[in-house]
């Protein structure tokens, strides 16, 4: 299919380093849906919104602005696949577009590396583009599926930073503005042929964000553990998310929970792009699913 929509693809840190399958899946599945993701060369860390935002906002603004300028130079909007990156890159873009003083300050810094932020592009999360029927939409996703995930019970973890804080967020599809009980990701999961499953405390945080995982791992894991208890109760085959950091927290976190709390869940955790890849016929090897902390085998046996 010819790519109608081109975006500068911002990778972030966790996806390429810990879950390279998501990166591969994002590029390959998007292409089948009419989106071409062009590498954003020279990009740095987004930088992490919790860690940097809590310590020095000016560094946060300047680094995110540099990434934005790289895309401006390519004359392309940014697409990304991580809620944390979305928070940094989208929000800094939004702030700089609306606050002249802030923009002038940032440009002062960027001048030292011969760059200037202009505010000429937009930032999108890949999931948001997948749901927008003007770009992709659930119907088109359904049509692209060659290996429907029939029979798989899949729960969705939305993560926080894409949709919260709701106050300034702007989405083409207003369904995404529903912060308390969104169901648009469930629609996407259903488009893959799987059965989306509701569970208790769906909108609870994964526990990792905002620097909590780095600062107080036991506390962070305690939160993830509560979500895992609720997921187990709902009897799901896998959890899907749209944020590699949430994925890391639930996937590697299960190993740490086993060590620290002595409980075991063995719940496969897949980024939505990985799920989409499976449904479009990518092999588990192409998706590097063997790099996951928790084995995806039981889930794969069910859907392949």
């Amino acid at each position: 299919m010819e790519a109608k929509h081109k975006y500068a693809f911002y990778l972030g840190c966790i996806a390429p380093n810990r879950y390279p399958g998501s990166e591969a899946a994002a590029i390959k599945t998007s292409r089948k849906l009419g989106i071409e993701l062009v590498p954003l060369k020279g990009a740095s860390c987004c930088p992490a919104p919790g860690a940097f935002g809590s310590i020095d906002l000016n560094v946060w603004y300047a680094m995110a602005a540099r990434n934005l300028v790289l895309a401006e130079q390519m004359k392309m909007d940014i697409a990304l696949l991580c809620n944390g990156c979305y928070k940094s890159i989208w929000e800094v873009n939004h702030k700089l577009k609306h606050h002249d003083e802030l923009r002038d300050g940032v440009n002062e810094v960027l001048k030292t590396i011969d760059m200037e932020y202009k505010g000429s592009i937009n930032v999108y999360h890949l999931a948001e583009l997948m749901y927008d029927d003007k770009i992709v939409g659930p119907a088109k996703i359904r049509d692209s599926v060659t290996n429907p995930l029939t029979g798989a019970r899949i729960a969705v973890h939305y993560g926080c930073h894409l949709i919260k804080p709701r106050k300034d967020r702007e989405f083409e599809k207003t369904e995404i503005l529903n912060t308390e009980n969104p169901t648009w990701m469930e629609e996407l999961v259903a488009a893959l042929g799987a059965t989306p499953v509701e569970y208790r405390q769906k909108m609870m945080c994964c526990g990792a964000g905002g620097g909590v995982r780095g600062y107080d791992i036991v506390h962070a894991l305690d939160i993830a553990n509560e979500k895992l208890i609720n997921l187990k109760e709902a009897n799901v085959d896998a959890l899907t998310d749209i944020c590699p950091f949430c994925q890391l927290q639930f996937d590697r976190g299960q190993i740490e929970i086993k060590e620290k709390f002595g409980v075991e869940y063995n719940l496969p955790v897949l980024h939505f792009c990985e799920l989409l890849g499976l449904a479009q016929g990518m092999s588990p090897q192409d998706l590097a699913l063997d790099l996951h902390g928790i084995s995806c085998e039981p889930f794969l046996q069910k859907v392949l």
Partner: protein
Amino acid sequence: MKEVLNMAERKTKKEISSTKGTTTAVKKQAPAKLAIGEQPAAQKEARIGVFICHCGTNIAGSMDINAVQEYAKTIPNVGYVDNYKYMCSMPGQAVINKAIHDNKLTGVVVAACSPRLHEPTFRTATKEGGLNPFRFEMANIREQNSWVHMHDQEGSTEKAKDAIRIAVAKASLLEDLFPKSVPVEKAAMVVGAGIAGMQAALDLANAGIKTYLIEKTPTIGGRMSQLDKTFPTLDCSQCILTPKMVDVGRSPNIELMTYSEVESVEGYIGNFDVTIRKKARGVLTPAEAAAKGIVGGGCNGCGDCETACPVIQPNTFEEGMKPRKAIYIQHPQVVPLLYTIDKEACIKCEICVKVCGEKKAIDLNQEDEFVKVKVGTAIMAVGYDIFPIENKTEWGYKRYENVITSLEFERLICASGPTGGHMVRPSDGVAPKKVAFLLCAGSRDNTGIGKPYCSRFCCMYSLKHAHQLIEKMPGVQPYIFYMDIRSFGKMYEEFYYRIQDEGAKFIRGRVSNILEDPVSKNLMVFADDTLLDRPMKLEVDLVVLAAAVQPSADTNRTRKLFGVSCSMDGWLLEAHPKLNPCGTTTAGVFLAGACQGPKDIPDVVASAEGAASAASIPIHVGHVELEPYFAQCIEEKCAGCGMCVNLCPYTALALIEKDGRKVMQVTEAKCKGCGTCGGFCPGGAIWMNHFATPQIIAQIDAFLLGGEH
């Protein structure tokens, strides 16, 4: 503005001759007006008095009054200049009066606040000085100047000079005008028959005025009839309401039109022509049946049809918690006792027609009817609706079965309600043990989803609900989540203490989230207890949301018919929030009850009595004076094209045959002086009284030419 003026000054030097040419050309229009029989003021020697008000420090604190005064003396046609601390005070008005006599002034300019506030005051002062009151012009140097340029002394001084120069230019050309007196129809209309509309109609009727009471639903009574008990007296709502409903039904001066809507409104104070759509209810009253020659026929409310009807619908009066049929009455105490057919639901099986038999009350093919009435004044009492609280998704209304609204609670606890007054929770029909009440649900909400205002009666009815639970169901624990308890009315604070003593638990904090246990359907309520400064969670069986209120669905359509403005929230706007709370900016149209903003029953009744009193005044006086701002046709210039007739929003214009040709004619009482026709007329044949073209051109010139002529 200053820049514009400088540009104008520069332009003046270069192009003065050409601009001057235009001015003279336009001024030539004035003699044409002579044909109507007036002497243009400009032809006499205009001597204008300028009076500058300090308004304490409101104006004087932000500009140099002396500089403005000195400047005013240099404006052409100015015969006298003075300033005073409060021009609107009696001594201030005396200054104007004396100056008119001493200086033989022909016009008055007061530079002060807005015409909305004090134009009537200064017109009276002008009149007392011996001039026609319409020889007065106001320069607003407060709202549009000192208040907005509080920290720009120099700028506001210059702007005041401009405003005065412009006002003097107009005042020099003002003419004597005479208000028109028109008779007032001795009848009134009340739209909406909730407690506000009923009270207003009863008062008008008791004052001897024929009153049309229009209600869109099949019965009168409104929201109050849905309530179980009223705070703080705890008397039964229906018990105190039904006597009034009966009175309304019986009053010889009230013509009650239920299941009807206002379709169109024409005319003006004293003479409103209102068309009412009587929606086809499919059922004939005894009177309608008699008119059709059916002896002893028409609906007597026996209910046989309802028993027979096979179609089941949710009963909106019971908030959908009880079924009704396609032919229905909302509750046993309806006034008028008359069945109505839900046309959307009716399958036209005609079983009801058969069981009705000889009464022949049912006409399934009935169509909407239009009735025209003439009234002198009208009251809007269109009430409120409940905000769709499901939009606040965090509380899960419509998602969790055991989250209900306070209005649903009223019906559930009411002895005549769907459960016969047994308070049960929707998921399993079991009586709850722990009930959480969420106050400010969607009120005082700045997220953009809810409403920013306080809905004013939720605190009190939630206290009442807590009391009802404790009284009716010993052992039940009510928890009240609140921001502030606003118990401001008579005996309200005492009621609050009483409920505290009875054992209701109060938690100061907004609820952030509610989660449902998928099995037990119990609800986990998460909040921040701001008094103990700690987050809390509480498992309850039932959550009651004290949802915000908003203007009723039809408010916007109806208000436009009557030309009433609304606030940003959609509530109808009174003429003045403090000093004219019942009036509107449309003369002869008044407001009663919660359509103005949230009000509890005592406030609603008080406001209804106020509106009824205000609406009866023009009717009792018998005539009203209309401002003489109407358009006039300069017949020699009129080409009879008729463009203006189509443009007029008030149907005040018509083409007539005169001396063998067509000319336009104005119905002066209908004309509001909006100027649409005058601004459009290609031949300049329409003269707008008090806003005539030469007067406006003079104002523009005075501004652009910076005082040079």
